[in-house]
């Protein structure tokens, strides 16, 4: 039974996702002991590749998605099922900071597909869970997805493709904005559709996805390559003034939404 991690990394004009993927892959190798396959395009591949991925799969970049900062190549994630060379795969965002072997636990779960349905924000205890819209469902998160090569998992990814191709239609039904395609929303809908419009408990990773959100910055506590201790700083606005607050975290995986912060964190990798 082969196991591995799959990363999708397509460089945008603003961010070097390939570089992020290399840093994440090294951490996956170190903390999880798993091989990493990257899905990317020839434009993102550097001329001299210092890190050797288990597999490099070239795929066309779909540049039709846009965010406030420019082109965001995040479409095509539904191809994970067909492209993964592993029997059991963890599909990971490139900006996910692996600091422990926690993700290995997803392989122990008696299910063939799971992702996060709840999040916690560092420095924001009790923050509300994101919903597709106030009239719709709680969002599932595409940041970490574990799947096995089964018919049901295949159907979920096929449905993900269908939702991606009809994103505007689903946005109209569920009342969210379709201008920017989001894998989280598409995955939420695909999982529900495939499961008869429910989210089975078995499809949910039984712990929170940890996010680093707005007004929050993370700093490494050491320059060691595989540092796992961080200082988290937060600007707490109170009565028009900023009060700086901090916390120290250890051996905790987290997802960094701020790409500049992520690039800063990986510069010693």
């Amino acid at each position, binding site marked *: 039974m082969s196991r591995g991690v799959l990363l999708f990394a397509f460089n945008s004009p603003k961010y070097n996702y390939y570089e992020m993927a290399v840093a994440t892959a090294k951490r996956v190798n170190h903390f999880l002991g798993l091989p990493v396959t990257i899905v990317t395009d020839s434009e993102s591949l550097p001329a001299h590749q210092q890190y050797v991925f288990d597999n490099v799969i070239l795929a066309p970049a779909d540049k039709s998605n846009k965010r406030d900062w420019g082109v965001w190549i995040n479409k095509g994630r539904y191809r994970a099922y067909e492209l993964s060379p592993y029997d059991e795969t963890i599909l990971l965002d490139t900006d996910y900071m692996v600091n422990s072997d926690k993700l290995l636990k997803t392989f122990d779960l*008696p299910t063939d597909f799971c992702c996060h349905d709840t999040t916690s924000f560092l420095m924001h205890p009790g923050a509300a869970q994101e919903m597709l819209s106030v009239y719709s469902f709680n969002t599932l998160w595409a940041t970490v997805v574990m799947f096995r090569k089964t018919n049901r998992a295949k159907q979920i990814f096929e449905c993900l493709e269908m939702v991606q191709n009809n994103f505007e239609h689903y946005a109209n039904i569920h009342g969210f904005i379709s201008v920017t395609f989001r894998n989280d929303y598409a995955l939420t809908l695909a999982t529900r559709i495939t499961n008869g419009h429910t989210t089975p408990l078995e499809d949910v990773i*039984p*712990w929170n996805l940890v996010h680093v959100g707005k007004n929050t910055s993370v700093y490494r506590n050491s320059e060691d390559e595989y540092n796992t201790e961080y200082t*988290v*700083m937060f600007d707490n606005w109170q009565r028009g003034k900023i009060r*700086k607050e901090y*916390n120290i975290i250890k051996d905790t995986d987290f997802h960094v939404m701020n790409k500049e912060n992520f690039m800063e964190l990986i510069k010693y990798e």
Partner: protein
Amino acid sequence: MDTKTLITEAKARFNHNSAKSQLKDKYDSKLIVADQGGLWKASPELIGFLASSTDEHVILIDNFENPVMVNRMSLHDVLSKAYDDAMNLWYSEWKELESKR
């Protein structure tokens, strides 16, 4: 600039509520154990039940809300170890952070 200097220069205050919440998140997940075809949370209640029963096999509702027949002592030992390991680490990390200002 190292992080200690950063904290001093920014006059940042340690946020105990965030630390408490983050540690709960971190160690709650370490209490989750997949064993004997079910998913369990190593809670004092479940460990206590497993210790108090006398049957070799018991049927329990797991975290996925499925009834699962388990070998009682085997699950007891697995959950007790997960509980002890997580609690010891949680306690020592909390004591370390508790003194920060």
